[in-house]
């Protein structure tokens, strides 16, 4: 009997229900079978990859043992490996294997593996991926070029425009691939291009600056000149310039400390808060003790709460006891966050700061309680050390 007589006729309803049931039954069976087939396929694939790895591993060890000067032997070893790479899956296996081994070794052997990754079939496939419109392919292609020794200009020409890609993930991998080049000017150009973009998170940009500072090449001075070029370029968004300033201090480009100090000297009240904040942070990271006075003079009465917060933190880090009166003043700041940071900064200044905390008067109860709590913790720590 048709329960929906006002919608469809009996005969149609019966047939429709029957068809629906059959379709659903087929779909259910299809899904179960597909899941099982997939699992079996995966198991076979895993077994194949394992066998292939076992087959390639001794050949790769042999390759690593060879003297790079013995071109004939190296070419033969490479050819032995290439002979065993018959499918796209084999190429993935050797790439994975190289990366696995590279993760655990360093120096000349690592360089050899990076060279080995350039074997023709793999290189051709990954290079082709750089021309794809699919984000996944672009990422895979760029990731490959992060790990190989590659100074070919055609690759660079292909990767550079990818920094402009809409996807920040493509941007990130493309820039990482360029940062594998030993030419610092090329790396600097790429970093600047990255910095011109907006919408990159602070952490992602920091990671890229770390990659730009390629430890494999000892080029600190050249890198500094590229970084100064970016920091001083006002067409670069301030937020990105700020991140570069923070990261140069974090990485430890010691020769830039004076440059940044001079930048602070030349700053005016109207200058961008993001840059100011990063510069204050950088002074703390460089432990530029002499900067305490300049920072206080320039920023202690800044209307920007974030700047005053960073200033309090930094004065604590710089360890200059001349900052104590300023910090005591900051414990009465309009903003609670600044007041709390000033208390912690005083505690960081050692005994004189600690004494200042003890005799702090005229501040609100909550700040007094935070100070008391810090004193109690310091005393507990001191007692433990004495014991």
């Amino acid at each position, binding site marked *: 009997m048709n*329960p929906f007589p006002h919608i469809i006729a009996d005969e149609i309803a019966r047939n429709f229900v029957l068809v629906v049931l059959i379709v659903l039954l087929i779909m259910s069976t299809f*899904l179960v079978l597909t*899941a099982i087939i997939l699992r079996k396929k995966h198991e076979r694939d895993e077994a194949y990859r394992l066998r292939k790895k076992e087959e390639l591993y001794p050949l790769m060890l042999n390759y690593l043992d060879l003297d790079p000067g013995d071109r004939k032997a190296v070419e033969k070893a490479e050819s032995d490996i290439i002979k065993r790479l018959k499918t796209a899956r084999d190429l993935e296996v050797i790439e994975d294997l190289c990366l696995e081994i590279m993760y655990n070794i360093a120096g000349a052997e690592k360089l050899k593996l990076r060279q080995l990754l350039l074997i023709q079939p793999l290189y051709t496939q990954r290079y082709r991926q750089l021309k794809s419109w699919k*984000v996944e392919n672009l*990422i895979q292609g760029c990731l490959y070029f992060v790990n190989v020794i590659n100074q070919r200009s055609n690759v660079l020409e292909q990767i550079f425009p990818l920094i402009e890609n809409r996807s*920040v993930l493509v941007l*990130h991998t493309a820039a990482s691939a360029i940062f594998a080049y030993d030419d610092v000017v090329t790396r600097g150009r790429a970093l600047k291009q990255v910095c011109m973009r907006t919408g990159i998170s602070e952490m992602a940009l920091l990671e890229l600056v*770390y990659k730009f500072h390629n430890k494999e090449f000892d080029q600190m001075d050249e890198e500094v000149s590229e970084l100064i070029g970016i920091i001083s370029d006002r067409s670069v968004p301030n937020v990105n310039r700020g991140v570069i300033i923070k990261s140069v201090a*974090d990485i430890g480009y010691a020769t830039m400390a004076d440059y940044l100090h001079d930048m602070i000297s030349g700053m005016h009240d109207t200058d961008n808060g993001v840059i100011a904040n990063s510069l204050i942070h950088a002074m703390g990271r460089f432990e530029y003790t002499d900067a305490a006075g300049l920072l206080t003079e320039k920023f202690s009465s800044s209307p920007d709460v974030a700047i005053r917060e960073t200033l309090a933190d930094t004065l604590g880090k710089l360890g200059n006891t001349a900052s104590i009166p300023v910090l005591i003043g900051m414990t009465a700041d309009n903003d609670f966050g600044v007041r709390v940071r000033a208390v912690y900064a005083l505690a960081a200044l050692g005994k004189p700061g600690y004494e200042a905390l003890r005799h702090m008067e005229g501040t609100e109860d909550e700040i007094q309680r935070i100070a008391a709590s810090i004193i*109690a913790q310091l005393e507990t720590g001191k007692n433990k050390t004495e014991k």
Partner: protein
Amino acid sequence: MEFIREFLAWFNSGILVYFIMLNVTYIILVTISFFYVRNQLKRKKVYDLTGLFTSKLYLPVSILAPAYNEEANIISSVRALLQLEFPEFQVVVINDGSTDGTLQMLIDHYKLNKVDKYYPLIINHQPVNDVYESELFPELTVIDKKNGRKADALNAGLNIARHDLVCSIDADSILEPDVLKKMLRAFMEDEETVAVGGIVRVANGCTFSQGRIQKIDTPKSFLGRIQVVEYLRAFLFGRVGWDYLNSLLIISGAFGIFDRRAVMRAGGYLHDTVGEDMELVMRLHHYYRIKKIPYKIRFLAEPVCWTEVPEDVATLSRQRNRWQRGLVDSLWRHRRMMFNPKYGRLGFLAMPFFVIFEMLGPVIEFLGWIAILVALLIGAISWPFFFAFLAAAVFLGMILSLASVLCEEFTFRRYPKTKHVLILSLYAFFENFGYRQMHTWWRLKGLFDFVRGRREWGDMERKGLDSST
């Protein structure tokens, strides 16, 4: 009688339309999720953080683990947290007035000492008795406070947390060692991210030792296995699909990372609800939309949190009843989001979905079964049609569950053997006979309990996950 027949005919038509709409929505979510998860997996190698973690400029995390009578699990759970692979994190265990030996076990095992630690009370919570720090692990802080339920405990944790990101978990959950690194990717990918949820998987049946998972297996019990399928379906479709649509309304209380400042700005966790996890996410949406600040709330399917699920009917029914009350409570509190253009897709897509299919779903489903049975009894429909309808409902439910099993096969394959695929497929079928109906009843009861004003949590007994404790 004719009037009843006519009424039933129209009513059943309504149910049919509802049934079709529900399944079409699910199928759309399944399809989106399937492609979206696969694409996400291909992108996971982008952020290999070689540089950032050597600096101090990444966002460190404070993990907040509220514990109420968790003596069965607490030592192993804390041990697992302390073993996480992340350069800088703090573990804050909040003993929420436990009446068992939770606190004493922590004090003894981790050599805790009381500290005179003052912190500003930015968000209110029940009074704190003491704050402890560990002699063995400087990153471990334990707060002992008066009982105020989970939300209250989390607020205490939020106040004392010293890092920019806070990760809220259940104290009985075990996080995989690399989850924080994986979750951090969402914050790297987009500066506007304020909250990220990860996948919760069923721990029953798995073997844990020293706070780490050693062997993955399906649970032995009927209810345990059905919940594995349920969790796969809920996370691999539901959450992934809503994430794609940028309309995620819930991050599981068992595992989520939040920007601490964002949570503080929104006012912290709400005390008087049993669905504090969903309510917080909805309030974050509300806060950012009203203030017109760009933001993202994400779900990542890769970072895993293992959790113990109830395997007896009584505890499970209490849990589902509570979940339903929490859901209804959150939707009711934020009802102004419904069809409100200010909230975009949230107001026009996610909210109507949750109200119609999740909140009212049990009522409609229950009434639908009653109507069909009445129609059958008075002869308005025939037995063959009844069976056909039943079969269609079973097959559709099964197809959706099977699709989640298949999605798991295409992507993560966490269950290692073919046997597991068969078990999960079988239970995708079994859950339609008895369990689904029971589940509808528990949710229906939860809805009525909410209307009647019931707000308590209900007890949850734990057996403990770690064989090494």
